[in-house]
């Protein structure tokens, strides 16, 4: 066996599929006001936060679960879930990493996320979220020097209530759709980032999400605020153990960019996708929305979606400030019985706003992939433009690839261009590569990586390497 084959052998299975035996504190099963009060209480939240949650819950009770999406799933019993689960050892948050449960550190080591700062990887500050709580944030001192706030959401509610109060729920209001409202009621933790005026964040910020406990839903909430003239690049990664049940992950992510600020948000999503027969896996129903509030602001989403049994999300940009820019780069890969319905929304409200959408979908096995997007140019958004390109690649005739773009142009000054293609890897390309000594799998890998290159280029270096590998692994065994 040469090294490459060995690597493949190792990678063939979902390598993050282990679970950690760790003592948990859980909220009682079910969804009701008491559980919400329990969550709020255990996090020692102020009254306004509890009110925020209860308000959302009131609203939630009136909402109906949406069913217009392409991938259908069996009904979720929302009363049969634990809404809060935390490792016992962090119920009083450790002062430093030495106090952390060694088992937790071990888990993150296995995941390849170094929480020890000395083992730092090219200077990335990490916030690790385990089930419902944030367990550790690294590089705090370095960041504090620049006035940057990077901490868990719970900590931010305690320490920076004014900032949280001012911005939380302004992009995704509690009155939004079913899953977003559910999140507003029961969210447990997540990351909070504030970049002060004029600061360029000196390192990549990163959050690593891990679902460990069974029968839990993960509801994290992330809020990133880039003040005037600042810049931040934020990475997000996710894994979960292999379990036969389907687990729900319904996060809310809000981004706010003020005048001249730029936020770059990258995701490598590798939740457990279920086994090859489609049993188990994560339901990834996430709401991500960015608001370009100020002039000349920019928000850029990059996502590599390889995991989850069902991915259902549309990272969006609301381009409110004049001259603001929204970008969306996506690779979505589905294999076996995975299903994805993903895309973006670009809502142009300000003058001279620009948006760009590049989406690459690859489906193999029995999977089903949908790109669904909205480009909406408002009548006030003079001189705006949008460019959309979505390409799909099919491998085999048991899978599906669909494109459903909605295009609304209410402004005669603005231009929208949309292109989409669907094809398979051509025999000629394969033949050409094989003629030059690549085996069929390598050839496909090369061609797929080329197909995705436009998006991979957008990822920060460290992630790009991981993403490229993931692309290869996800399609393992689908060639032939």
């Amino acid at each position: 066996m040469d090294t490459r084959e060995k690597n493949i052998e190792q990678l063939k299975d979902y390598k993050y599929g282990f679970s950690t035996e760790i003592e948990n504190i859980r909220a009682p099963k079910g969804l009701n006001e008491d559980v919400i009060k329990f969550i709020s209480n255990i996090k020692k939240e102020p009254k306004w936060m509890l009110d925020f949650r209860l308000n959302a819950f009131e609203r939630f009770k009136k909402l109906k679960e949406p069913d217009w999406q392409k991938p259908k799933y069996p009904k979720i019993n929302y009363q049969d879930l634990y809404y809060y689960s935390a490792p016992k050892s962090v119920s009083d948050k450790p002062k430093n990493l030495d106090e952390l449960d060694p088992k937790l550190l071990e888990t993150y080591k296995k995941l390849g996320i170094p929480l020890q700062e000395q083992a730092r990887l090219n200077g990335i500050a990490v916030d690790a979220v385990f089930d419902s709580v944030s367990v550790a944030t690294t590089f705090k001192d370095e960041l504090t020097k620049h006035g940057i706030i990077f901490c868990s959401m719970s900590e931010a509610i305690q320490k920076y209530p004014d900032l949280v109060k001012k911005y939380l729920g302004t992009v995704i209001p509690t009155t939004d759709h079913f899953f977003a409202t559910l999140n507003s009621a029961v969210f447990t933790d997540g990351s909070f980032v504030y970049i002060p005026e004029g600061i360029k964040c000196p390192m990549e910020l990163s959050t690593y999400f891990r679902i460990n406990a069974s029968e839990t839903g993960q509801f994290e909430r992330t809020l990133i605020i880039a003040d005037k003239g600042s810049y931040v690049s934020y990475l997000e990664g996710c894994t979960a153990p292999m379990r036969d049940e389907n687990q729900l992950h319904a996060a809310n992510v809000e981004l706010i960019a003020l005048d001249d600020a730029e936020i770059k948000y990258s995701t490598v999503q590798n939740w457990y996708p279920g086994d090859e027969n489609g049993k188990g896996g994560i339901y990834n129903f996430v709401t991500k929305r960015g608001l370009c509030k100020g002039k000349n602001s920019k928000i850029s989403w990059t996502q590599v979606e390889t995991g989850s049994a069902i991915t259902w999300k549309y990272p969006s940009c609301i381009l409110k400030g004049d001259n603001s820019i929204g970008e969306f780069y996506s690779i979505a890969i589905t294999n076996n019985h995975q299903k994805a319905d993903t895309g973006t929304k670009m809502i142009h409200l300000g003058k001279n706003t620009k948006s760009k959408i590049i989406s690459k979908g690859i489906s193999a096995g029995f999977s089903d992939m949908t790109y669904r997007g909205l480009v909406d140019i408002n009548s006030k958004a003079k001189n705006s433009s949008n460019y959309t390109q979505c390409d799909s690649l099919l491998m085999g005739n048991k899978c599906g690839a669909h494109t459903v773009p909605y295009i609304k142009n209410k402004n005669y000054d603005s231009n929208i261009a949309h292109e989409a293609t669907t094809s398979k890897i051509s025999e000629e390309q394969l033949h050409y590569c094989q003629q030059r000594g690549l085996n069929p799998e390598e050839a496909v890998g090369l061609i797929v990586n080329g197909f995705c290159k436009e998006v991979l280029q957008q990822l920060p270096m460290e992630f790009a390497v991981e993403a490229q590998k993931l692309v290869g692994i996800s399609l393992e065994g689908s060639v032939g």
Partner: protein
Amino acid sequence: MTEKIKIDFEKTLKNSAFSEKDIEFKMKYLNKFIESGLPNRKLENWKFSDLSQIIQKNIGELSFYNDYSIQNKVDTSIFVDGLEHNKIIFINGRVEKIDFSYEDHNKVKIDDHFEFRAESDNNNSLLSLNNAFTNKCFRITIKKDYSLKKPLVIYHTTNNKIKSKNINLKLEFELEQNSSLRIIDLLKDESVNNFINIFYNFNLKENAILKNYKIDKILNKNIRYLFNNIEQQSNSVSETFILSSGSNFSKNEVNCNLNGEYSSAFVNGIFSLDNEQQHEIRTIINHLVENTKSYQLIKSVLGKNAKSAYQGKIFVDSKAQKTDGYQLSKAILLDETSEFNAKPELEIYADDVKCSHGSASGSLDENTIFYLMSRGLNYKQSKELLINGFLLDVIEKITDPEIKNLVKNMIGFKE
């Protein structure tokens, strides 16, 4: 509305001679329609144009009863000049004349009474409405190996005797092996504020060729829905051209099932709208077997407060390898208040296919206008030249030279 429609339905039955079987069939569809009502925004297909609301706003209460016993006088001045043609004339929803005098009568069969076929799918409430209220449905069969010598012009006319009425029409066409048929639908209205619901069913056998040109050119205040269902066997070709410009509101739907290998479907359309007009084209092309082809081109020119929408779907079954599907929609917005919506959709389950779609919308390019003006045209002329060029592209797609010229003359592009 429910009470009204029931009373009108009773009245319709009393004044017509339907068989018991027909009545049973009609009852079924009436109940189906009452259950779902007029389509509204909540339905995905009607997202861009809420028919229920539009009827409410423009017509108010609809009346469903039509007296088909009175004959209307056919006004011969409406006939197309300079083109010999066969005719079907509808006046206020009543068939006044069917004339195939140019053709061999053994080769064209006209049935005015046959068993109504239940439409297979369908949650389309407007088809239910159509089934419940159509007075007479004709089936025209073109026999094997026969090509109609002259095109068939179907005149859809209304006069000022009707107002706030719902009119339902239905025609069936059977094209047997190797036959061919050219149809021009001409819409001519003198009435205002009616809702006209037209349903065509085409059945194309092997090697049959169908060309359907729908011309809605003359300004009128009616609300119109036209549905073409086309079933195609192998090697058959269908061509649909839609000029969508005259009615106040219009929605054209084309549903095409490519059931046989090497069959192909072409849909081309023009929206030329102004002054509060709202039009939509929705196409569904189902590629169900190998080696089928579809091509769609839709262009819009939108003036003040005009709104157009294009929803196009290409469906490729997992059996339908080697499918070639193409879709392009373009729009020019001339005014601050014009609006263009599109939903070009691909649903693909086979891997060896070539499918693509494109959509672009924007204003006229100022640089190009500048170029033309620097060569001596004035602003208005330059603009017209550009718009004409933009639309001519679609008209050039018409494969029948005789009809291409006719359409050009109608729109004002003289050769």
